[in-house]
């Protein structure tokens, strides 16, 4: 885990690119962790886990020990990830049915899950399954189970929406996925930790903590202990 004691401002550069963000999340996953990577951007974290990290990937459709995406002759319609894309199997893998897979999740056995988000609140509430648009077809999949069950929920998202409004908010306005479940938020502009005490800026990229604070509607703390 990142053991920062002082907020680090990376000012001599721009915001994190998508690959850089995935690499940052990968860096913060402890070796040997059991991890579920949500569909979409979180899936790309797998490409940045260092060899020998011992991280074991769980996929909600019934597998531990999932390997990288399958290509060419490796593709097997009976072996897919939660996004229904073909994947591979690593040595030490195991298969189980859906009730067992979600028992594993709900029972608190996964160390980390990484999810995308529409909004995260200052208390760690997560909104990531429904935009609330009246004509949208609701579809939750395993998002609520992951948000509720994993020991730690990391969120990956841009910090601001396309219209410039922050996605780290005092109260989520989109329908909730889970209450007080997010512990870390990885964005293009900063990394935040959330606990009962509130939101802390741990790192910034291409901006200062003070500038960020002025653009957010919630209070954020910085770390100022010397290492």
């Amino acid at each position, binding site marked *: 885990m990142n053991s920062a004691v002082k907020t680090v401002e990376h000012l001599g550069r721009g915001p994190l690119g998508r690959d850089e963000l995935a690499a940052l999340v990968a860096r913060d996953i402890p070796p040997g962790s059991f991890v579920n990577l949500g569909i979409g951007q979180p899936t790309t974290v797998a490409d940045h886990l260092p060899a020998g990290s011992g991280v074991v990937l769980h996929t909600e459709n019934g597998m531990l020990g999932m390997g990288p995406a399958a290509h060419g002759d490796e593709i097997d319609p009976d072996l*897919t990830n939660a996004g229904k894309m073909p994947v591979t199997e690593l040595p030490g893998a195991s298969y189980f049915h859906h009730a067992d897979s979600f028992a594993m999740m709900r029972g608190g056995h996964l160390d980390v899950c990484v999810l995308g988000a529409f909004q995260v609140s200052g208390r760690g509430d997560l909104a990531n399954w429904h935009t609330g648009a009246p004509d949208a077809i609701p579809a939750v999949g395993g998002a*609520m189970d992951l948000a*509720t069950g994993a020991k730690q929920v990391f969120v990956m998202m841009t910090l601001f929406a396309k219209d410039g409004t922050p996605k780290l908010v005092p109260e989520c306005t989109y329908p909730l996925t889970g209450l007080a479940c997010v512990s870390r938020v990885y964005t293009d502009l900063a990394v935040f930790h959330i606990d009962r005490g509130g939101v802390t800026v741990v790192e910034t990229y291409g901006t200062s903590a003070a500038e960020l604070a002025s653009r957010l509607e919630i209070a954020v703390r910085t770390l100022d202990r010397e290492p």
Partner: protein
Amino acid sequence: MTAVFSDPGDAVAGIADGSTVLIGGFGMAGMPVQLIDALIRQGATGLTVVSNNAGNGDTGLAALLAAGRVRKMICSFPRQSDSWVFDGLYRSGKIELEVVPQGTLAERMRAAGAGIGAFYCPTGVGTPLAEGKETRTIDGRDHVLEYPIKGDVVLIAAHAGDRMGNLVYRKTARNFGPVMATAAALTIAQVHHVVETGELDPEAVVTPCIYVDRILDLNAKEATP
């Protein structure tokens, strides 16, 4: 005792209008396409279908939906890039939808199969999917009360079965099959091939024969055109 069929029509005979049908699969992996096709030909209508998704493309569950046989879908994730059949029915008000978190969907079917009357589940607390549900705080954590989902019929796909009805699956195509098999009055499984009793490793059987009423042997079908 389990009956082995080579004709898909025989395997789905007797499914009544208005039945609740649990259909296995996560996307196309583990989807019992031949049984669903046979159900379309069989003609049962007004069905409630419980399945993780609401059909992909134009085959399998999507074809059953397109045929207008489904009154209500209970699923976790209807909206997908290739769920145009369901999307159209839903937007035109021709189908009812109950969205259930994926793990709760699985656990509610397990409860039906395991004789559990109801269970307190932490998933979904404080979200729109918990609205109207009874809640209880246990050990400082909030839970919602969830009830079993029991089927009249289950259609699943397994990899192989023996003549007694024991089933094994393959990789992530296992998904909902073993849970659904326990949760209905009539369980029908399609398998790629049937082996003689005694050929499956008793330590590796995933669905014991007690849960399986009918097997459709896809290999036999191919062998006798």
